[in-house]
């Protein structure tokens, strides 16, 4: 839960110590691996969460995160100090996730690939423990939204994650996605509509089956 709360903080809240981060970036760009490790510690939770949301399973999320940091180290010299580091990091993360999704071609069914143990672990730990009933409802909602997210095209999924989960403004999302604000707005609108329809269909189907 603590993790989820931290991830949902706006970008600026995590870049308050920008001067020290800038120094670390400078040192890492000069080849200082200890400084780069500090950068990884600063940003690993965000990157892992983003890759998991994009790819839907832990194994792919780990591989993708590793690749993200390797690319960050490789292109750190190209990073401009006036840029928002985390926006730049998200840009790399989205690109890596899309590459991996293309390569593995199973992102459409990634919910199915989550093994039962992993799924239980995910929903069990992240869910509030006040009472069992609420926990069960939350767990079902998470499962439902995971399935709904899996049906979205890569770009729509990335846009809605950045906008609705990471809480970035539309313009920032557009910059990360290398697209226009209008396009991002359209992708977000389409994604929300699809998620609503998916949930409606699911709940309707569930209602019919319970009636039978």
């Amino acid at each position, binding site marked *: 839960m603590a993790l989820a709360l931290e991830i949902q903080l706006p970008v600026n809240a995590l870049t308050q110590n920008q001067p020290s981060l800038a120094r670390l970036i400078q040192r890492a760009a000069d080849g200082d691996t200890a400084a780069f490790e500090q950068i990884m510690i600063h940003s690993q939770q965000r990157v892992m969460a983003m890759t998991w949301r994009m790819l839907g399973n832990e194994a792919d999320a780990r591989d993708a995160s590793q690749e993200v940091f390797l690319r960050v180290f490789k292109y750190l010299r190209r990073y401009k100090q006036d840029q928002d580091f985390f926006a730049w990091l998200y840009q790399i993360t989205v690109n890596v996730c899309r590459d991996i999704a293309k390569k593995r071609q199973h992102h459409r069914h990634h919910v199915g690939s989550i093994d039962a143990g992993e799924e239980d672990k995910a929903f069990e730990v992240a869910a509030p423990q006040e009472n069992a009933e609420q926990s069960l409802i939350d767990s079902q909602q998470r499962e439902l939204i995971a399935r709904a997210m899996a049906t979205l095209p890569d770009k729509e999924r990335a846009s809605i994650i950045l906008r*609705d989960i990471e809480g970035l403004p539309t313009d920032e999302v557009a910059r990360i996605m290398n697209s226009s604000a209008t396009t991002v707005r359209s992708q977000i*609108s389409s994604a929300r509509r699809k998620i609503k329809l998916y949930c409606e269909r699911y709940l309707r189907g569930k209602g019919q089956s319970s009636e039978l």
Partner: protein
Amino acid sequence: MNCNQAQELLPLLAGRDLEEKQATLVAAHVESCEECAHSAEEYREAQHMVRLYAPPPFSEEDYAGMRRSVLREIERGPTAFTVPALIGGLFRPRIRWAIATALMLAVSVFAFYFMANRKNDAKQIVINGGDASPSSEEAPSNPPAADQPLPLSAPPHTPLPGKVFKAGGGTSSPNKHNRLMFARVSPRAPIVAQPDTSDVPAFSEKTTRVEIQTKDPNIRIIWFSPRPTKRDAPNKSSRRNQEARSNA
């Protein structure tokens, strides 16, 4: 604002992604329309559910393992080029397209070069023919009248009316099976292309005739190339007899 317009904008209203003016209009419609109000509520619920899409809490071991892997890769340095990696790289989509484009360009350039060379060869023939000296052996003593039409087909051993030059300008005896002749006609006389088929049929069955009209309307290149047949042998002997007779 009608329901259709409102339904289009409801997903954006739920996430506060509309401009103030539009948001006010949609909100006003939602207040007055029960169906749209229900949809707006569903969008809000869906958005709330999206926020629940959280990853499992990764342990510190997971993070440490990932960091170790990254640092190990960094210390290992850029991966050296291996043959399988190089071959595998060739099949990457972008490189595949680049190779295809390069091949297309190469083929186009080669085809263009080939075609251009063929044209040059044709011009070369004309130039060689123009420089050639007249052959006393084959030039007729009496050129035909200027207004006399040229026969379009004639056997290779029959000299064409007008001055005939040997290709290449040499004076050696021409190969009778493959010789190039140029018929020069007086500029006053326009060539009337009327096929003279009176003495040709037997010949035309055995030979291939190629005609090339040069830029000058009065110069036409006619190329006879007989197909090799069994009759070639007697022809050669008769030719030798003819030469022996003329020497005597």
